[in-house]
């Protein structure tokens, strides 16, 4: 039998076509998102290039919006690849924001205490979400849908019960000189922009209290967080043992368990990471606006999921890419702000987004079939 086997196994299988290196480099999970990004940029370069959209302050504008989407998309992406959803992301954003404002403004503790408590509570709620999903075996769709309502309701209740308002302002004032708050609300590389302004690359304010200062103050920390999370998520997913476990947990949880992958731990940790990302988003937003509101983060869970899906991830788990999700977030941000720059009626944003979503998913499905041999 051994002899027939070796004779029957030629060096190359005649039924597998050789792939050209070009094709091989192109066929990747992010391809749909890459095409989408190119298309969207070409479109806006065509219709809005003279509107200031691609000036430094324009770039900071849509860059910030994209970074917001990217922060929650990275969390949602890893969780989706691990085979689960989190619909409570938006409510988590509102909840964390209110917690920070309550502790710092209302109760007078330092802002950093508020931030740390918010993160601790978010991680605990993320863990609870994950624990419930793993232990009950219920779809995460249902469990986190319950938390979408529970958290939103609690947030409004806590806010009204303690302050009789749903918006708590004055965070910026109490955050002055705080050792942690600047990590979320600050701007970095402002020296660089002063220098660029002196060179005439970046414009300066010509009048008003800020006259003489560059129009771009610096890179908002929000963008730095987005980059850190994207790089972290991408390396974790593609280059580490834990990343392999994320794919395995979402690809086939039972098969993964049989070879010793701690599937439950992976899933719970990913729920915690999603909640962590939501809280980073919330903290940045509270620091930027100087206030927290109980209705913040509405529909953010869907925007995160849409970014991830545009990025090539499979809704049922086991397949996807953080870089793709980040590009999805970029497309989202550029389209939203670009239509504003182009002076297009803002209601058309949703039409545009729906069309992109549909096109990206169709292309992604086709690419995924080519890669995985799915039928």
């Amino acid at each position, binding site marked *: *039998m051994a002899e027939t086997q070796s004779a029957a196994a030629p060096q190359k299988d005649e039924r597998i076509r050789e792939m050209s290196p070009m094709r091989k480099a192109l066929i990747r999970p992010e391809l749909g998102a890459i095409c989408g990004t190119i298309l969207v940029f070409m479109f806006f370069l065509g219709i809005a290039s003279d509107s200031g959209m691609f000036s430094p302050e324009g770039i900071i504008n849509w860059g910030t919006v994209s970074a917001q989407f990217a922060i929650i998309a990275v969390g949602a992406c890893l969780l989706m690849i691990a085979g689960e959803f989190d619909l409570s992301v938006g409510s988590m954003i509102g909840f964390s924001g209110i917690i920070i404002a309550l502790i710092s403004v209302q109760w007078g503790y330092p802002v950093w205490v508020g931030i740390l408590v918010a993160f601790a509570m978010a991680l605990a709620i993320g863990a609870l979400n994950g624990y419930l999903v793993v232990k009950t075996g219920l779809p995460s769709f249902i469990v986190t849908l319950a938390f979408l309502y529970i958290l939103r309701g609690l947030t409004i209740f806590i806010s009204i019960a303690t302050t009789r308002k749903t918006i708590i302002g004055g965070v910026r004032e109490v955050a002055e000189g705080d050792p942690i708050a600047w990590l979320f609300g600050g701007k970095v590389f402002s020296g660089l922009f002063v220098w660029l302004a002196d060179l005439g690359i970046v414009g300066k304010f010509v009048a008003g209290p800020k006259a003489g200062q560059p129009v771009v103050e610096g890179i908002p920390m929000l963008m730095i967080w987005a980059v850190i999370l994207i790089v972290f998520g991408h390396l974790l997913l593609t280059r580490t043992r834990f990343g392999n476990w994320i794919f395995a947990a979402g690809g086939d949880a039972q098969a993964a368990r049989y070879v010793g992958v701690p599937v439950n731990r992976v899933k719970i940790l990913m729920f915690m990471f999603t909640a962590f990302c939501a809280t980073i988003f919330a903290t940045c937003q509270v620091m930027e606006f100087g206030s927290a509101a109980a209705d913040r983060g509405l529909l953010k869970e869907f925007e995160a999921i849409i970014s991830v899906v545009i990025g090539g991830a499979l809704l049922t788990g086991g397949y996807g890419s953080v870089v793709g999700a980040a590009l999805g977030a970029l497309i989202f941000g550029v389209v939203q702000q670009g239509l504003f720059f182009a002076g297009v009626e803002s209601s058309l944003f949703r039409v545009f987004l729906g069309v992109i979503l549909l096109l990206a998913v169709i292309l992604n499905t086709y690419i995924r079939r080519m890669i995985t*041999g799915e039928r």
Partner: protein
Amino acid sequence: MSDNLIELVDIEKHFGPVIALNGVSVSVKAGECHCLLGDNGAGKSTFIKTMSGVHKPTKGKILMDGKEVNFNSPRDAMEAGIATVYQDLAMIPLMSVTRNFWMGREPQKRFGPFKFFDFAQANEVTMTEMAKMGIHLRSPDQAVGTLSGGERQTVAISRAVFFGAKVLILDEPTSALGVRQTSNVLATIDKVRQKGIGVVFITHNVRHAMAVGDRFTVLNRGKTLGTALRGDIKAEELQDLMAGGQELAELEGSLGGTI
């Protein structure tokens, strides 16, 4: 007795009021292929899950190299050298061959304070091990979904062998395969056996069992109906035992002895 790699004595397993196994004894020697035959519902699956640490036996002993062992999880059994290849759960089709091959045991490379999956080494080993089993991959990052059913079984088997399995349990590896793929898998079983690994081959296809088996144990309604050596028993007798004898004999008569 001492040449048994693993020996399961009088295993009973109850699920509430249901008695799934009612005194099953099986032993596996190094380098042999022990076929476990039984019809659907005979208790084959429960038995191998007990062997691989998924279930704990209600009664009975598991001996490895003559010493009694207790498996609390599949991980325990794996560490003791028992590897199981499940029919449909062998591989994750969306993931690459390398990622599947190393799943749960990824090699790591230190880079400063961080540890990364060592893909260079992992890919190389995967390609070599696959080639040994007669599968020539286009590339190690090819998704398992692009492989045929037989090739997937072979990847799973060579993974188990590479990670030092002493006992390899194969759960119906051939039941969903075509003729050519089946013979490839049977050839792989033969190669594995020659390495001195004890193979437990679960099947309900007597022909496949006769092709590679050294010993045959038939399970029926949660009991062992006895173990026979190769050459001591004919395919027809195995078939009769599996079906519980008389009924099938009648059926076979009406079908002209073709089953």
